[in-house]
Protein backbone atom coordinates (compact mmCIF):
# COMPACT_ATOMS: atom_id res chain seq x y z
CA UNK A 1 0.00 0.00 0.00
CA UNK A 2 2.55 2.52 1.11
CA UNK A 3 4.85 1.76 -1.81
CA UNK A 4 2.18 2.90 -4.26
CA UNK A 5 1.70 6.35 -2.83
CA UNK A 6 4.36 8.93 -3.42
CA UNK A 7 4.48 11.13 -0.33
CA UNK A 8 6.64 13.78 -1.98
CA UNK A 9 7.21 13.62 -5.71
CA UNK A 10 10.19 14.87 -7.66
CA UNK A 11 8.55 18.20 -8.30
CA UNK A 12 8.25 18.77 -4.55
CA UNK A 13 4.49 18.19 -4.40
CA UNK A 14 2.60 16.02 -1.96
CA UNK A 15 -0.21 13.58 -2.72
CA UNK A 16 -2.87 16.27 -2.41
CA UNK A 17 -0.95 18.83 -4.44
CA UNK A 18 0.48 20.81 -1.56
CA UNK A 19 4.10 21.80 -1.12
CA UNK A 20 6.13 20.79 1.89
CA UNK A 21 5.28 23.69 4.16
CA UNK A 22 1.80 24.36 2.85
CA UNK A 23 -1.08 24.07 5.31
CA UNK A 24 -4.48 22.83 4.30
CA UNK A 25 -7.41 25.16 3.86
CA UNK A 26 -8.82 26.33 7.21
CA UNK A 27 -12.43 27.34 7.69
CA UNK A 28 -13.71 28.57 11.03
CA UNK A 29 -17.34 28.80 12.04
CA UNK A 30 -18.23 30.51 15.33
CA UNK A 31 -22.03 30.56 15.09
CA UNK A 32 -23.72 29.43 18.31
CA UNK A 33 -24.85 25.81 18.50
CA UNK A 34 -27.89 25.01 20.61
CA UNK A 35 -27.70 26.10 24.21
CA UNK A 36 -23.90 26.01 24.42
CA UNK A 37 -22.14 28.99 26.02
CA UNK A 38 -19.57 28.92 23.27
CA UNK A 39 -19.04 26.81 20.21
CA UNK A 40 -16.78 26.60 17.22
CA UNK A 41 -16.16 24.28 14.35
CA UNK A 42 -12.99 24.20 12.34
CA UNK A 43 -11.94 22.34 9.24
CA UNK A 44 -8.37 21.57 8.29
CA UNK A 45 -8.81 20.29 4.77
CA UNK A 46 -11.09 17.29 5.17
CA UNK A 47 -10.75 17.05 8.93
CA UNK A 48 -13.71 18.63 10.62
CA UNK A 49 -14.21 19.08 14.37
CA UNK A 50 -16.92 20.89 16.25
CA UNK A 51 -16.64 21.88 19.92
CA UNK A 52 -19.26 23.13 22.38
CA UNK A 53 -18.42 24.71 25.71
CA UNK A 54 -20.75 24.71 28.69
CA UNK A 55 -19.74 26.68 31.70
CA UNK A 56 -18.16 27.69 33.93
CA UNK A 57 -21.05 26.13 35.78
CA UNK A 58 -21.80 24.22 38.96
CA UNK A 59 -19.83 20.97 39.00
CA UNK A 60 -21.89 17.84 38.53
CA UNK A 61 -19.93 15.64 40.91
CA UNK A 62 -19.35 17.31 44.22
CA UNK A 63 -16.40 15.00 44.94
CA UNK A 64 -14.46 16.33 41.98
CA UNK A 65 -14.79 20.04 42.71
CA UNK A 66 -11.69 21.97 43.63
CA UNK A 67 -12.09 24.77 46.14
CA UNK A 68 -9.53 27.04 44.47
CA UNK A 69 -10.14 26.58 40.76
CA UNK A 70 -12.44 25.19 38.10
CA UNK A 71 -12.06 21.73 36.65
CA UNK A 72 -12.00 21.06 32.92
CA UNK A 73 -14.09 18.18 31.74
CA UNK A 74 -13.29 17.08 28.20
CA UNK A 75 -15.49 14.56 26.40
CA UNK A 76 -14.60 13.48 22.88
CA UNK A 77 -17.12 11.90 20.58
CA UNK A 78 -15.79 10.42 17.36
CA UNK A 79 -18.79 9.97 15.15
CA UNK A 80 -18.96 6.62 13.35
CA UNK A 81 -19.22 8.19 9.91
CA UNK A 82 -16.09 10.28 10.37
CA UNK A 83 -13.69 7.69 8.99
CA UNK A 84 -13.58 5.48 5.92
CA UNK A 85 -14.27 2.31 7.86
CA UNK A 86 -17.54 2.87 9.64
CA UNK A 87 -16.90 1.83 13.18
CA UNK A 88 -18.51 2.87 16.39
CA UNK A 89 -16.10 3.83 19.12
CA UNK A 90 -17.41 3.82 22.65
CA UNK A 91 -16.79 6.49 25.25
CA UNK A 92 -14.25 4.24 26.92
CA UNK A 93 -12.15 3.60 23.82
CA UNK A 94 -8.49 3.95 24.74
CA UNK A 95 -7.65 6.20 21.78
CA UNK A 96 -10.49 8.55 22.59
CA UNK A 97 -9.68 8.74 26.28
CA UNK A 98 -6.09 9.56 25.40
CA UNK A 99 -7.22 12.26 22.98
CA UNK A 100 -9.43 13.77 25.69
CA UNK A 101 -6.61 13.62 28.21
CA UNK A 102 -4.20 15.43 25.91
CA UNK A 103 -6.76 18.16 25.16
CA UNK A 104 -7.33 18.57 28.89
CA UNK A 105 -3.65 18.79 29.74
CA UNK A 106 -3.11 21.25 26.89
CA UNK A 107 -5.70 23.66 28.20
CA UNK A 108 -5.22 23.35 31.95
CA UNK A 109 -2.26 25.77 32.02
CA UNK A 110 -3.92 28.13 29.52
CA UNK A 111 -7.42 28.64 30.92
CA UNK A 112 -7.53 30.90 33.98
CA UNK A 113 -9.31 28.31 36.08
CA UNK A 114 -8.45 30.00 39.37
CA UNK A 115 -11.07 32.67 38.62
CA UNK A 116 -13.85 30.12 38.91
CA UNK A 117 -13.50 28.13 42.15
CA UNK A 118 -15.79 25.12 42.60
CA UNK A 119 -16.94 25.31 38.98
CA UNK A 120 -16.64 23.04 36.01
CA UNK A 121 -16.04 23.85 32.37
CA UNK A 122 -17.40 21.21 30.03
CA UNK A 123 -15.72 20.82 26.66
CA UNK A 124 -17.61 18.57 24.27
CA UNK A 125 -15.65 17.68 21.16
CA UNK A 126 -17.38 16.07 18.18
CA UNK A 127 -15.20 14.73 15.40
CA UNK A 128 -17.23 14.96 12.21
CA UNK A 129 -14.63 14.04 9.60
CA UNK A 130 -11.13 12.66 9.92
CA UNK A 131 -8.32 13.09 7.48
CA UNK A 132 -5.23 13.40 9.61
CA UNK A 133 -4.30 16.04 12.15
CA UNK A 134 -7.14 15.09 14.47
CA UNK A 135 -5.48 16.36 17.64
CA UNK A 136 -4.50 19.66 16.05
CA UNK A 137 -8.06 20.24 14.85
CA UNK A 138 -9.48 19.36 18.28
CA UNK A 139 -7.12 21.78 20.04
CA UNK A 140 -7.71 24.63 17.59
CA UNK A 141 -11.48 24.19 17.75
CA UNK A 142 -11.40 24.09 21.55
CA UNK A 143 -9.41 27.33 21.69
CA UNK A 144 -11.91 29.06 19.46
CA UNK A 145 -14.87 27.71 21.39
CA UNK A 146 -13.38 28.83 24.71
CA UNK A 147 -12.78 32.29 23.27
CA UNK A 148 -16.36 32.52 22.02
CA UNK A 149 -17.65 31.35 25.42
CA UNK A 150 -15.82 34.22 27.13
CA UNK A 151 -13.69 31.90 29.24
CA UNK A 152 -10.53 33.80 30.24
CA UNK A 153 -7.37 32.37 28.69
CA UNK A 154 -3.78 33.52 28.82
CA UNK A 155 -3.49 33.12 25.08
CA UNK A 156 -4.76 31.19 22.10
CA UNK A 157 -3.38 27.70 21.66
CA UNK A 158 -2.49 26.93 18.07
CA UNK A 159 -1.67 23.36 17.17
CA UNK A 160 -0.20 21.93 14.02
CA UNK A 161 1.21 18.55 13.05
CA UNK A 162 4.43 17.88 11.23
CA UNK A 163 6.22 14.85 9.85
CA UNK A 164 9.42 13.88 8.15
CA UNK A 165 9.68 12.17 4.79
CA UNK A 166 13.24 10.97 4.23
CA UNK A 167 14.79 14.06 5.82
CA UNK A 168 12.23 16.43 4.27
CA UNK A 169 9.93 18.01 6.86
CA UNK A 170 6.22 18.26 5.99
CA UNK A 171 3.48 20.24 7.73
CA UNK A 172 -0.19 19.48 8.40
CA UNK A 173 -0.32 15.79 7.47
CA UNK A 174 -3.26 13.98 5.94
CA UNK A 175 -4.21 10.42 6.92
CA UNK A 176 -2.21 9.02 4.01
CA UNK A 177 0.90 10.78 5.18
CA UNK A 178 0.29 10.07 8.86
CA UNK A 179 0.16 6.34 8.14
CA UNK A 180 3.57 6.36 6.52
CA UNK A 181 5.57 9.05 8.29
CA UNK A 182 6.80 9.70 11.79
CA UNK A 183 4.79 12.69 12.95
CA UNK A 184 4.60 15.09 15.86
CA UNK A 185 1.84 17.47 17.01
CA UNK A 186 2.91 20.76 18.58
CA UNK A 187 0.62 23.24 20.35
CA UNK A 188 2.06 26.70 20.83
CA UNK A 189 0.91 29.87 22.58
CA UNK A 190 1.71 32.47 19.93
CA UNK A 191 2.38 35.54 22.07
CA UNK A 192 4.95 34.06 24.39
CA UNK A 193 5.89 31.27 21.97
CA UNK A 194 5.53 28.81 24.83
CA UNK A 195 4.70 25.25 23.87
CA UNK A 196 1.91 23.58 25.83
CA UNK A 197 1.85 20.23 24.05
CA UNK A 198 4.22 18.05 22.08
CA UNK A 199 3.13 14.52 21.26
CA UNK A 200 5.04 11.97 19.32
CA UNK A 201 3.40 8.60 18.81
CA UNK A 202 5.91 7.23 16.35
CA UNK A 203 9.68 7.05 16.35
CA UNK A 204 11.43 10.09 14.96
CA UNK A 205 15.14 10.58 14.56
CA UNK A 206 16.43 12.97 17.17
CA UNK A 207 18.31 15.04 14.58
CA UNK A 208 15.11 15.66 12.65
CA UNK A 209 13.09 16.59 15.71
CA UNK A 210 14.58 20.07 16.15
CA UNK A 211 13.81 20.97 12.53
CA UNK A 212 10.25 19.84 12.55
CA UNK A 213 9.60 21.28 15.99
CA UNK A 214 10.78 24.73 14.99
CA UNK A 215 8.83 24.55 11.77
CA UNK A 216 5.64 23.59 13.60
CA UNK A 217 6.09 26.49 16.04
CA UNK A 218 6.32 28.89 13.08
CA UNK A 219 3.27 27.35 11.46
CA UNK A 220 1.40 27.89 14.72
CA UNK A 221 1.81 31.65 14.21
CA UNK A 222 0.15 31.38 10.81
CA UNK A 223 -2.78 29.46 12.25
CA UNK A 224 -3.00 32.02 15.05
CA UNK A 225 -3.43 34.86 12.57
CA UNK A 226 -6.30 32.95 11.01
CA UNK A 227 -7.99 32.16 14.33
CA UNK A 228 -7.48 35.66 15.65
CA UNK A 229 -9.14 37.17 12.62
CA UNK A 230 -12.13 34.84 12.94
CA UNK A 231 -12.65 35.69 16.63
CA UNK A 232 -12.24 39.43 16.00
CA UNK A 233 -14.69 39.31 13.15
CA UNK A 234 -17.24 37.48 15.29
CA UNK A 235 -16.77 39.92 18.18
CA UNK A 236 -17.13 42.88 15.85
CA UNK A 237 -20.34 41.45 14.41
CA UNK A 238 -21.84 40.94 17.84
CA UNK A 239 -20.80 44.37 19.08
CA UNK A 240 -22.29 45.90 15.96
CA UNK A 241 -25.52 43.95 16.40
CA UNK A 242 -25.84 45.32 19.91
CA UNK A 243 -25.64 48.76 18.39
CA UNK A 244 -22.96 49.77 20.85
CA UNK A 245 -19.94 49.79 18.66
CA UNK A 246 -18.52 50.15 15.21
CA UNK A 247 -20.64 48.83 12.39
CA UNK A 248 -19.40 45.65 10.77
CA UNK A 249 -16.99 47.06 8.27
CA UNK A 250 -14.29 45.51 6.20
CA UNK A 251 -12.38 43.01 8.25
CA UNK A 252 -8.78 42.99 9.23
CA UNK A 253 -6.22 43.07 6.51
CA UNK A 254 -6.55 39.81 4.63
CA UNK A 255 -3.49 37.99 3.53
CA UNK A 256 -4.75 34.57 2.83
CA UNK A 257 -1.92 32.56 1.39
CA UNK A 258 0.98 32.79 3.72
CA UNK A 259 4.05 31.25 2.17
CA UNK A 260 6.44 30.18 4.86
CA UNK A 261 10.03 31.18 4.32
CA UNK A 262 11.92 28.35 2.75
CA UNK A 263 14.85 28.97 5.04
CA UNK A 264 14.95 25.59 6.67
CA UNK A 265 14.86 23.85 3.34
CA UNK A 266 18.59 23.57 2.84
CA UNK A 267 19.81 20.71 4.92
Amino acid at each position, binding site marked *: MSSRIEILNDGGYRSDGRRQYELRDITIDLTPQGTADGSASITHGLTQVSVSIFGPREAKQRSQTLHDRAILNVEVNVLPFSTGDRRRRGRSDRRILELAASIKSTFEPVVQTSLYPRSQIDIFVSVLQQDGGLLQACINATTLAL*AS*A*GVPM*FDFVCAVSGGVHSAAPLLDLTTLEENDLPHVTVAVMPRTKKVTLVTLETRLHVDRFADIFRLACDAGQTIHAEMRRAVKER*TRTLVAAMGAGPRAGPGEHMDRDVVMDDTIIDY
Partner: protein
Amino acid sequence: MISFASFPSSSHDFSDYSTTRHHPDVEDDIAMDFDLEDGDFEDATQKLIVPGEPLTSSHAFMRGHGTYVDGEEVVGSVAGTVERVNKLVSVRAIRTRYNPEVGDLVVGRITEVQPRRWKVDANSRQDAVLMLSSVNLPGGVQRRKLESDELQMRTFFEEGDLLVAEVQAFFADGAMSLHTRSLKYGKLRNGQLVAVPPVLIKRLKSHFLTLPCGVDVILGLNGYIWVSKHVKESQQEGEEGFDAEAVYSNKNDDIDDATRAAISRVCNIIRILAAQFVPLTDAVLLEAYDLVVEQEGDVKDLLHGDAGDALVTALGGRG
Protein backbone atom coordinates in the same frame (compact mmCIF):
# COMPACT_ATOMS: atom_id res chain seq x y z
CA MET B 1 -2.38 111.16 43.16
CA ILE B 2 -2.32 107.46 42.58
CA SER B 3 -0.46 106.08 39.66
CA PHE B 4 -0.79 102.58 38.33
CA ALA B 5 2.27 100.72 37.36
CA SER B 6 1.35 97.96 34.97
CA PHE B 7 2.97 94.62 35.42
CA PRO B 8 4.55 93.12 32.37
CA SER B 9 1.82 91.16 30.63
CA SER B 10 2.34 87.45 30.26
CA SER B 11 -1.13 86.61 29.05
CA HIS B 12 0.10 85.29 25.74
CA ASP B 13 1.67 82.44 27.64
CA PHE B 14 -1.71 81.21 28.80
CA SER B 15 -3.34 81.39 25.43
CA ASP B 16 -1.09 78.69 24.18
CA TYR B 17 -2.69 75.47 25.37
CA SER B 18 0.12 73.28 24.20
CA THR B 19 2.25 74.56 27.05
CA THR B 20 -0.43 73.93 29.64
CA ARG B 21 0.97 71.77 32.37
CA HIS B 22 -1.06 68.76 33.36
CA HIS B 23 -0.86 66.65 36.42
CA PRO B 24 1.39 63.70 35.57
CA ASP B 25 -1.67 61.37 35.68
CA VAL B 26 -3.42 63.39 33.03
CA GLU B 27 -0.46 63.14 30.75
CA ASP B 28 -0.49 59.41 31.23
CA ASP B 29 -4.12 59.36 30.18
CA ILE B 30 -3.27 61.15 27.00
CA ALA B 31 -0.59 58.60 26.35
CA MET B 32 -3.14 55.88 26.95
CA ASP B 33 -5.53 57.31 24.39
CA PHE B 34 -2.78 57.28 21.90
CA ASP B 35 -1.94 53.74 22.88
CA LEU B 36 -5.45 52.56 22.26
CA GLU B 37 -5.95 54.37 19.02
CA ASP B 38 -3.48 52.37 17.03
CA GLY B 39 -6.39 50.13 15.99
CA ASP B 40 -8.77 50.84 13.17
CA PHE B 41 -11.28 52.76 15.30
CA GLU B 42 -11.50 56.39 16.13
CA ASP B 43 -13.29 55.68 19.39
CA ALA B 44 -10.71 54.28 21.77
CA THR B 45 -13.34 52.86 24.12
CA GLN B 46 -14.61 50.46 21.48
CA LYS B 47 -11.37 48.74 20.68
CA LEU B 48 -11.79 44.99 20.29
CA ILE B 49 -9.42 42.58 21.97
CA VAL B 50 -8.88 38.85 21.66
CA PRO B 51 -7.17 36.64 24.26
CA GLY B 52 -3.41 37.13 24.42
CA GLU B 53 -3.45 40.57 22.87
CA PRO B 54 -1.35 43.19 24.70
CA LEU B 55 -3.32 46.25 25.81
CA THR B 56 -0.97 48.67 27.49
CA SER B 57 1.88 49.05 29.93
CA SER B 58 1.47 47.48 33.35
CA HIS B 59 3.40 50.30 35.03
CA ALA B 60 1.01 53.07 34.10
CA PHE B 61 -2.27 51.15 34.40
CA MET B 62 -4.07 48.74 36.69
CA ARG B 63 -5.50 45.54 35.34
CA GLY B 64 -9.23 44.94 35.64
CA HIS B 65 -11.49 42.06 34.73
CA GLY B 66 -10.67 40.17 31.56
CA THR B 67 -7.00 41.06 31.67
CA TYR B 68 -3.82 39.79 33.27
CA VAL B 69 -0.35 41.18 33.80
CA ASP B 70 2.60 39.54 32.12
CA GLY B 71 5.83 41.34 32.91
CA GLU B 72 5.64 44.85 31.50
CA GLU B 73 2.29 44.46 29.77
CA VAL B 74 -1.38 44.24 30.57
CA VAL B 75 -2.76 41.52 28.30
CA GLY B 76 -6.39 40.74 27.47
CA SER B 77 -7.71 37.29 28.36
CA VAL B 78 -11.18 37.36 26.78
CA ALA B 79 -12.63 38.47 23.45
CA GLY B 80 -14.51 41.73 23.88
CA THR B 81 -14.35 45.48 24.13
CA VAL B 82 -11.83 47.51 26.14
CA GLU B 83 -13.17 49.67 28.92
CA ARG B 84 -11.19 52.15 30.90
CA VAL B 85 -11.98 54.04 34.08
CA ASN B 86 -9.12 56.36 34.95
CA LYS B 87 -6.20 53.98 35.50
CA LEU B 88 -8.19 50.77 35.47
CA VAL B 89 -8.23 48.88 32.19
CA SER B 90 -10.63 45.99 31.74
CA VAL B 91 -12.03 43.94 28.89
CA ARG B 92 -15.74 43.20 28.83
CA ALA B 93 -16.37 39.82 27.21
CA ILE B 94 -19.04 39.93 24.56
CA ARG B 95 -20.44 36.51 25.44
CA THR B 96 -20.01 35.13 28.90
CA ARG B 97 -21.92 33.73 31.82
CA TYR B 98 -23.87 36.05 34.11
CA ASN B 99 -21.76 38.10 36.53
CA PRO B 100 -24.01 38.80 39.50
CA GLU B 101 -24.21 42.10 41.34
CA VAL B 102 -26.08 42.83 44.55
CA GLY B 103 -29.59 44.04 43.82
CA ASP B 104 -29.91 42.34 40.45
CA LEU B 105 -33.20 40.70 39.59
CA VAL B 106 -32.73 37.10 38.46
CA VAL B 107 -34.95 34.27 37.34
CA GLY B 108 -33.72 30.84 38.41
CA ARG B 109 -34.57 27.20 38.71
CA ILE B 110 -34.24 25.09 41.86
CA THR B 111 -31.70 22.32 41.33
CA GLU B 112 -31.33 20.93 44.81
CA VAL B 113 -32.88 21.06 48.28
CA GLN B 114 -30.30 21.08 51.07
CA PRO B 115 -30.56 21.62 54.84
CA ARG B 116 -32.02 25.12 55.33
CA ARG B 117 -31.22 26.17 51.78
CA TRP B 118 -32.09 25.65 48.15
CA LYS B 119 -29.59 25.58 45.32
CA VAL B 120 -30.73 27.63 42.34
CA ASP B 121 -29.43 27.51 38.78
CA ALA B 122 -29.17 31.17 37.78
CA ASN B 123 -26.96 30.89 34.66
CA SER B 124 -23.95 31.93 36.72
CA ARG B 125 -20.63 30.21 37.25
CA GLN B 126 -21.93 28.48 40.35
CA ASP B 127 -25.40 27.65 41.58
CA ALA B 128 -26.93 30.41 43.69
CA VAL B 129 -28.09 29.78 47.25
CA LEU B 130 -31.55 30.64 48.54
CA MET B 131 -31.60 30.36 52.32
CA LEU B 132 -34.76 29.31 54.10
CA SER B 133 -34.38 32.50 56.15
CA SER B 134 -34.57 34.66 53.04
CA VAL B 135 -37.96 33.56 51.76
CA ASN B 136 -41.40 34.69 52.86
CA LEU B 137 -43.27 31.88 54.53
CA PRO B 138 -47.03 31.61 55.04
CA GLY B 139 -48.19 33.17 58.26
CA GLY B 140 -46.66 36.60 58.07
CA VAL B 141 -43.50 38.26 56.94
CA GLN B 142 -41.94 38.50 60.38
CA ARG B 143 -42.58 34.89 61.33
CA ARG B 144 -39.76 32.86 62.85
CA LYS B 145 -38.51 29.87 60.92
CA LEU B 146 -39.23 26.74 62.86
CA GLU B 147 -37.85 23.24 62.61
CA SER B 148 -41.11 22.17 61.05
CA ASP B 149 -40.43 24.60 58.19
CA GLU B 150 -37.05 22.96 57.60
CA LEU B 151 -38.74 19.60 57.34
CA GLN B 152 -41.29 20.74 54.79
CA MET B 153 -39.05 22.83 52.54
CA ARG B 154 -40.20 20.87 49.51
CA THR B 155 -43.73 22.17 50.00
CA PHE B 156 -42.39 25.67 49.25
CA PHE B 157 -39.86 25.01 46.50
CA GLU B 158 -39.13 21.70 44.81
CA GLU B 159 -36.44 20.68 42.35
CA GLY B 160 -37.34 22.14 38.96
CA ASP B 161 -39.46 25.00 40.28
CA LEU B 162 -38.84 28.39 38.72
CA LEU B 163 -38.60 31.50 40.82
CA VAL B 164 -37.81 35.17 40.57
CA ALA B 165 -35.49 36.60 43.21
CA GLU B 166 -33.03 39.36 43.98
CA VAL B 167 -29.29 38.97 44.59
CA GLN B 168 -28.78 39.65 48.27
CA ALA B 169 -25.08 39.05 48.98
CA PHE B 170 -22.07 37.01 48.01
CA PHE B 171 -20.29 34.21 49.80
CA ALA B 172 -16.53 34.14 50.16
CA ASP B 173 -16.07 31.93 47.10
CA GLY B 174 -18.16 34.23 44.88
CA ALA B 175 -21.41 32.25 44.97
CA MET B 176 -24.47 34.47 45.25
CA SER B 177 -27.16 34.41 47.87
CA LEU B 178 -30.71 35.22 46.75
CA HIS B 179 -33.77 36.46 48.58
CA THR B 180 -37.47 36.48 47.79
CA ARG B 181 -38.58 38.67 50.70
CA SER B 182 -40.90 40.83 48.69
CA LEU B 183 -44.31 40.19 47.26
CA LYS B 184 -42.91 40.80 43.78
CA TYR B 185 -40.65 37.77 44.11
CA GLY B 186 -41.37 34.10 44.52
CA LYS B 187 -42.46 31.08 42.58
CA LEU B 188 -43.36 31.45 38.91
CA ARG B 189 -46.28 29.86 37.12
CA ASN B 190 -48.69 30.47 34.21
CA GLY B 191 -45.95 31.01 31.67
CA GLN B 192 -42.90 30.03 29.73
CA LEU B 193 -39.12 30.49 30.19
CA VAL B 194 -36.80 31.81 27.47
CA ALA B 195 -33.04 31.91 27.89
CA VAL B 196 -30.93 34.54 26.10
CA PRO B 197 -27.30 35.64 26.47
CA PRO B 198 -27.14 37.72 29.70
CA VAL B 199 -25.30 40.58 27.97
CA LEU B 200 -28.50 41.38 26.06
CA ILE B 201 -30.42 42.32 29.21
CA LYS B 202 -29.57 45.87 30.20
CA ARG B 203 -30.44 47.30 33.59
CA LEU B 204 -33.84 48.97 33.36
CA LYS B 205 -35.99 51.04 35.65
CA SER B 206 -38.22 48.02 36.10
CA HIS B 207 -37.66 44.46 35.02
CA PHE B 208 -41.31 43.57 35.48
CA LEU B 209 -42.96 44.52 32.19
CA THR B 210 -46.63 44.37 31.37
CA LEU B 211 -47.35 44.26 27.67
CA PRO B 212 -50.75 45.47 26.45
CA CYS B 213 -51.47 42.02 24.97
CA GLY B 214 -52.19 40.62 28.43
CA VAL B 215 -48.70 39.25 28.98
CA ASP B 216 -46.28 39.89 31.83
CA VAL B 217 -42.56 39.66 31.13
CA ILE B 218 -39.86 39.35 33.79
CA LEU B 219 -36.44 40.18 32.38
CA GLY B 220 -33.94 38.45 34.63
CA LEU B 221 -30.51 40.04 34.43
CA ASN B 222 -29.04 36.54 34.20
CA GLY B 223 -30.58 36.09 30.76
CA TYR B 224 -33.56 34.05 31.86
CA ILE B 225 -36.83 35.65 30.82
CA TRP B 226 -40.20 34.64 32.18
CA VAL B 227 -43.21 35.28 29.95
CA SER B 228 -46.54 34.70 31.64
CA LYS B 229 -50.21 35.52 31.76
CA HIS B 230 -50.95 38.98 33.14
CA VAL B 231 -52.01 39.10 36.78
CA LYS B 232 -54.05 42.12 37.78
CA GLU B 233 -52.58 44.27 40.56
CA SER B 234 -55.65 43.78 42.69
CA GLN B 235 -55.42 40.02 42.35
CA GLN B 236 -51.80 39.86 43.42
CA GLU B 237 -51.46 38.33 46.82
CA GLY B 238 -51.57 41.22 49.26
CA GLU B 239 -49.55 41.66 52.42
CA GLU B 240 -52.42 41.05 54.78
CA GLY B 241 -53.90 38.21 52.81
CA PHE B 242 -50.54 36.48 52.28
CA ASP B 243 -51.90 33.24 50.98
CA ALA B 244 -49.44 30.34 51.02
CA GLU B 245 -51.71 28.32 48.80
CA ALA B 246 -51.50 30.92 46.07
CA VAL B 247 -47.85 31.94 46.47
CA TYR B 248 -46.36 28.45 46.55
CA SER B 249 -48.98 26.82 44.33
CA ASN B 250 -47.85 24.47 41.59
CA LYS B 251 -51.13 24.68 39.69
CA ASN B 252 -51.46 26.89 36.63
CA ASP B 253 -54.54 29.06 36.30
CA ASP B 254 -56.81 28.62 33.31
CA ILE B 255 -55.22 30.42 30.38
CA ASP B 256 -57.41 31.16 27.36
CA ASP B 257 -56.22 30.51 23.81
CA ALA B 258 -55.65 34.18 22.98
CA THR B 259 -53.30 34.59 25.96
CA ARG B 260 -51.48 31.36 25.10
CA ALA B 261 -50.92 32.64 21.57
CA ALA B 262 -49.73 35.99 22.92
CA ILE B 263 -47.28 34.28 25.29
CA SER B 264 -45.87 32.13 22.49
CA ARG B 265 -45.62 35.15 20.21
CA VAL B 266 -43.69 37.15 22.79
CA CYS B 267 -41.39 34.16 23.41
CA ASN B 268 -40.69 33.77 19.72
CA ILE B 269 -39.99 37.49 19.36
CA ILE B 270 -37.48 37.25 22.22
CA ARG B 271 -35.82 34.23 20.58
CA ILE B 272 -35.53 36.06 17.27
CA LEU B 273 -34.08 39.20 18.83
CA ALA B 274 -31.63 37.12 20.87
CA ALA B 275 -30.53 35.21 17.77
CA GLN B 276 -29.84 38.55 16.09
CA PHE B 277 -28.06 39.77 19.26
CA VAL B 278 -30.35 42.75 19.80
CA PRO B 279 -30.44 44.08 23.38
CA LEU B 280 -33.87 43.59 24.93
CA THR B 281 -35.71 46.50 26.51
CA ASP B 282 -39.38 47.19 27.14
CA ALA B 283 -39.52 49.61 24.20
CA VAL B 284 -37.97 47.11 21.77
CA LEU B 285 -40.33 44.33 22.87
CA LEU B 286 -43.41 46.52 22.54
CA GLU B 287 -42.42 47.75 19.11
CA ALA B 288 -41.57 44.26 17.90
CA TYR B 289 -44.89 42.93 19.14
CA ASP B 290 -46.78 45.65 17.29
CA LEU B 291 -44.86 44.90 14.10
CA VAL B 292 -45.56 41.20 14.38
CA VAL B 293 -49.25 41.73 15.02
CA GLU B 294 -49.44 44.03 11.97
CA GLN B 295 -48.08 41.22 9.80
CA GLU B 296 -50.91 38.96 10.99
CA GLY B 297 -48.85 35.82 10.54
CA ASP B 298 -49.18 32.64 12.52
CA VAL B 299 -47.13 32.49 15.72
CA LYS B 300 -44.91 29.69 14.51
CA ASP B 301 -44.14 31.40 11.19
CA LEU B 302 -42.02 33.85 13.15
CA LEU B 303 -39.27 31.31 13.58
CA HIS B 304 -39.27 30.29 9.92
CA GLY B 305 -37.06 31.63 7.18
CA ASP B 306 -36.01 35.25 7.24
CA ALA B 307 -38.95 36.59 9.25
CA GLY B 308 -36.43 37.34 11.99
CA ASP B 309 -34.15 39.37 9.72
CA ALA B 310 -37.16 41.28 8.44
CA LEU B 311 -38.27 42.05 11.99
CA VAL B 312 -34.87 43.31 13.07
CA THR B 313 -34.56 45.42 9.91
CA ALA B 314 -37.98 46.90 10.52
CA LEU B 315 -37.04 47.68 14.12
CA GLY B 316 -33.82 49.32 13.00
CA GLY B 317 -35.75 51.41 10.48
CA ARG B 318 -38.06 52.80 13.11
CA GLY B 319 -35.55 53.28 15.85
